[in-house]
């Protein structure tokens, strides 16, 4: 013991005081903290991937294959499906009708929906809640039921025609069902809540003192609305229009019931091709033409606004 101590003591005297170098350790691999999260996500990711992403991609792939029947072995990669579509006036007019009806629906929803959104914005939160409940509830009732309600009202011997003919306003019943008018009524009725809620959200975000500032500077209520409120609600209007347009373009049940064979919108044609004529590859092409057209028009619309003189509102 003595000797060791002595030794240590001597060592200490001899060496200058230094801070010992830190012991180098191998960097431990950090366990990824989100691993349990990935585990939780796995079932749903697999499910969505397997039963959603893959099928969607599969029919995109199919649309580039031209066959005459689903079981044909003479599959050929070609754009023939698309060519068929764009060269046939029947399909092109179907696409046009779809776009036209959707645009009418957007217009009707916008004109009728804006006053409701404005009313909500000017009301207390409680009333806003009641109105939101009233207009959103129909969304949770099956579309067929809502269309049936319109049948009751719009049929030649339905409520509206009965009232009109008995009051003598029209001599013969109006053809409201099985026409474009009927489809627009059905679609606007179904999608109005989305337009209203989109515009309302935008209106809620407008600083209330902006309207006061306008008034103090001399703007009448109407002037205030057009110069201040309307431009500032543009983001809501655009998102509402985009939403209603997209949903109208791909609607099947309402056009089928309210328009029938008289209004051959794309979803109806596509359904027919696939379920009745079993032309799967062509039907797939139709679906993607519909999707692409919708996305194109929506992009043009939104980009148009973002580059317009109102672009400041969208920041």
């Amino acid at each position, binding site marked *: 013991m003595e000797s060791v101590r002595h030794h240590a003591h001597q060592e200490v005297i001899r060496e200058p005081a230094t801070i010992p170098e830190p012991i180098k350790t191998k960097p431990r691999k950090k366990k990824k*903290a*989100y691993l*349990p*999260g990935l585990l*939780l*996500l796995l*079932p*749903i*990711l697999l499910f*969505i991937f397997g039963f*959603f*992403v893959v*099928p*969607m991609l*599969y*029919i995109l792939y199919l649309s580039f294959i031209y066959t005459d029947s*689903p079981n044909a072995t003479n599959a050929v990669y070609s754009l023939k499906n698309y060519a068929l579509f764009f060269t046939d006036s029947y399909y092109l007019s179907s696409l046009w009708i779809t776009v036209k009806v959707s645009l009418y629906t957007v217009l009707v929803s916008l004109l*009728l*929906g804006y*006053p*409701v959104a*404005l*009313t*909500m914005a000017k009301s207390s939160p409680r009333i806003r*809640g009641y*109105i939101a*409940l*009233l*207009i959103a*509830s*129909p969304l*949770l*009732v*099956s*579309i*067929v*039921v809502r*269309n*049936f*309600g*319109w*049948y*009751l*009202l719009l049929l030649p*011997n*339905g*409520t509206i025609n009965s009232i009109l003919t008995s009051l003598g306003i029209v001599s013969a019943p109006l053809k409201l069902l099985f026409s474009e008018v009927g489809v627009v009524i059905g679609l606007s009725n179904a999608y*109005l*809540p989305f337009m209203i809620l*989109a515009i*309302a*959200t935008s209106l809620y975000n407008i600083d209330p003192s902006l309207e006061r500032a306008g008034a103090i500077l001399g703007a*009448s*209520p*109407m002037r205030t609305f057009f110069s201040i409120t309307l431009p500032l609600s543009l983001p809501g209007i655009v998102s509402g229009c985009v939403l209603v347009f997209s949903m109208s373009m791909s609607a099947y049940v309402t056009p089928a019931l309210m328009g029938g064979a008289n209004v051959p919108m794309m979803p109806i044609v596509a*359904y027919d091709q696939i*379920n009745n004529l079993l032309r799967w590859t062509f039907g797939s092409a139709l679906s993607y033409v*519909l*999707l692409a057209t*919708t996305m194109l028009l929506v992009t043009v619309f939104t980009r148009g606004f973002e580059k317009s003189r109102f672009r400041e509102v969208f920041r």
Partner: protein
Amino acid sequence: MKTLGRLRLLVAILTIIYILIPLLVVIPASFTSANYPSFPPQGFSFQWYTKLLERPEFMTALANSAKFALVAAFFSVLFGTLGALAIAKYDIPGKSYITSLLTSPLSVPQLVLGVALLIYFTPLMLAGTGTGFLIAHIIICIPYVIRLVLTGLSGFDYNLERAAAILGASPLTVFWRVTLPLIRPAIISGGLFAFLTSFDNVTVSLFMVSPDMRTLPIEIFSHMQDAYDPLVASVSSVVIFISVILIIILEKLQGVGRMFGGTH
């Protein structure tokens, strides 16, 4: 300019009536004593409800709808809640892309989805089967559950979980006794919403059904096209009734308007 304000209010009220009117006329029409559907109804009778009970195709369809909706809701809630928890709690790379992916079925038109699943399921022998139908419904319901549960978790105080852990609770206990009860309203809302979405669904279902496995909305759909009689009214009223009850519960839990992004 008070008149402009009054005009605005008038249009607003008329529009709200416009939105509600199809539902409002169906229920009285179901009590007609005549043989054809009309509004206003002719006379008053319960006949179309009693006749409904005698029609096996409607009763089966109702049972089918309810069954599928329940199971679809269950699985959507299961998958969706786990997914939402994972996204909310863990900093997974590409989180926002994953969330967008999981909610993307909402932005795809149901028509295209129906086409895709029908074509995809056929070689897999799932087309026209209950399983295939169920899978399709789960796909469309999951986005709603994810959105609702994520919203429910957005204000969640994770310190509550840490407090429980410090007190000695295992992760499973923490989840069962702390996390779950707190997000229960969001989960129940998600479940109810999923149930209604599945119960009401028509478009995707049209691609997935087989003649021996029809749901109520599809029965209504085909009856409207082929056999138009007041039976459709009474069936529809039943659907409205079920929906209204669930809507009331949903309103108490979550606020229906808020779920569609309405109020602040």
